[in-house]
Every structure is written in structure tokens, then in C-alpha cells.
């Protein structure tokens, strides 16, 4: 269990770094979504299924969707 936890923590740290280093907002929405899934995995391993459920729905679905829609709107205005 501890080994799994270490792997999950490392994945979350790597995922967070990738999100920060992604400069393009539309791509960042995708990396943020992947990061959300990694965070969900960590919460499940830490035996917090309630938090994991919130995270998977909000962090990997709703927030990236809002970012993508906002990016589309901003770009559409320039056309």
C-alpha cells in the first residue's frame, strides 16, 4: 500500500508540474483533466472516496470543459 501511495504522490507531483508547464490554455485544459484523474487515484488510495468522487466530477470534467468553452469564446471573438 505504501509503495502504491508513493507512486500516486509522484504521479500527482509530475502531473501538477506538467499542467504548470503547459503554456497553451486549450492544451492545459487537457493536462488539467488528466491531472484530475491522477488526483482522484491518490484520494482513493488515501481512503477518501467522497473527496475522490467530487474530484473526478469537478476536476476532470466540469473545470476543463469551462476552460475549453472560454478559450473557444475568446478565439471566436478575434475571427
Amino acid at each position, binding site marked *: 500500500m505504501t509503495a502504491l501511495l508513493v507512486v500516486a504522490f509522484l504521479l500527482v507531483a509530475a502531473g501538477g508540474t506538467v499542467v504548470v508547464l503547459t503554456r497553451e490554455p486549450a492544451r492545459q485544459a487537457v493536462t488539467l483533466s488528466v491531472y484530475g484523474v491522477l488526483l482522484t487515484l491518490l484520494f482513493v488510495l488515501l481512503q477518501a*472516496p*467522497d473527496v*475522490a*468522487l*467530487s474530484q473526478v*466530477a*469537478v476536476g476532470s*470534467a*466540469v473545470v476543463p*470543459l*469551462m476552460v475549453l*468553452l*472560454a478559450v*473557444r*469564446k475568446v478565439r*471566436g*471573438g478575434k475571427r
Partner: protein
Amino acid sequence: MSRSARWIVFWLGAGGVGTLIVLAVLKLPFGGLVHPYRELSVPAAIGRSSPNIVSSVNFDQRALDTLGEETILLGSVVGAAALLRPSKNEREQLDRDEGRVLEATKLLGYLLLPVTLIVGADVVTHGHLTPGGGFQGGVVLATGVHLLYVAGSYRMLRRLRPTKWYQLAEAVAAGAFVVLGLVGLLLTGAFLANVLPLGVLGDLFSSGTVFFLNVAVGAAVTSGVVVLLAGFLAQALSVREVR
């Protein structure tokens, strides 16, 4: 503010927060055997027929905090909806041609739509028994509705998801939470006191007000997220500047 001054302010703040976090984490009983809060909250939750301790804490033992959180959600949805409404020189215009949806996407979307809605409703109504509750289930329900857009079309989503209804439901659900709290205040003298019959531990209709507060929050979160996404979708897909 000059660049170097900004860095000084940043490092002062970051150093302060960092020190406080390290000090706090060092005192945390992480993985230890002493849990004073658990000793008190678990018997209280089981005693009031909510085997999901998290829900008992959220909707019974500290329900006032949840009311605060729900109000924050309500406030941010109202604020975002106000910012996202079309301005004076913008009109809603629907595209004639919305492009094509892959057959595989359509099949998967329509298969998953009822499944997602049932899972969402299950997570909301079993909040006092199993992991989940009004917030989690509400977000699942709200995202599930949008499979209509992914598998169908934006027109279809707009027709089957009248934003007005969801705006109304958001207000009614947030109000219901307060009304349940006031009922507790009237009957026992404590706001949000658990006054309803507690039922048998493990039954669907048990845990007193926890069940109903879960459903109220579920309705509020579903409609809040739907209203929020409706605003974003309209801005991205149909609101156009008119000259």
C-alpha cells in the same frame, strides 16, 4: 510596484505560508492511533443512523458549514451567470449546421445518458449510507445531462434543458436547506438540528434530516452546474455580436 519589490512581497508571503504549513503538518497526528475527533464523531453518526460518517459531519454535526458552502456555490453561480449573459450588442443565433457526430460517440452517449443519471441520483439519495452525497451526485447529474450535447446536438440540449427551470430549482433547493434549518430551530431551539425520525441504520429512508439535506444540496448543485455550463455554452456556441 517595481519587479524586485514584487519578488520581496512574494517571498515574504511564500515563506510565511511555507513555515505555517510545515509547523501545522509536524503537529498533525498523521497515521497515528490517537483520533480525538473520530472518537466523538463516529458514535454520533452511527447513533443518528448515518453509516457514512462524512455525510453525517457535513449534513448533521456541522450542517451550518455546509449551508455556508452552498451559499458560496449559489453566489458564484449567480455571479458567473450575470457575467455570462449576452450584452446589449449581442444576440443569440443558432447555427443551422452543427457538424457531424461520430456514430460511435452517439451510441456511447445515448447508452451512458440514462446510466449516468441513475448513478447520479443513486449517489445523491444514498449519501447518508455510502460514499458520495448531494454535492458529488449533483455534479454527476449535471454533467450527465450534457451527454445530450456530446451525443446529440446543441439544439437538442437547449430544448430538453430549459435554463429557467434550473434557475428556479437552484433557488428553491437553496431555500429548502434554510427552511429545514429553521424547522430545527423552531422545534429544538438549534438551527439545522436533526429533528426528523432517524429510522433504522442502513435503510434508505433513515438518518433524519441528513437524507433531505442531501437531496436539497443535490438539486442545488445539479441546477447550479447546469446554469453555469449553460452560460458558458451559450457564450461559446450561440451568442454573436450584432453590428
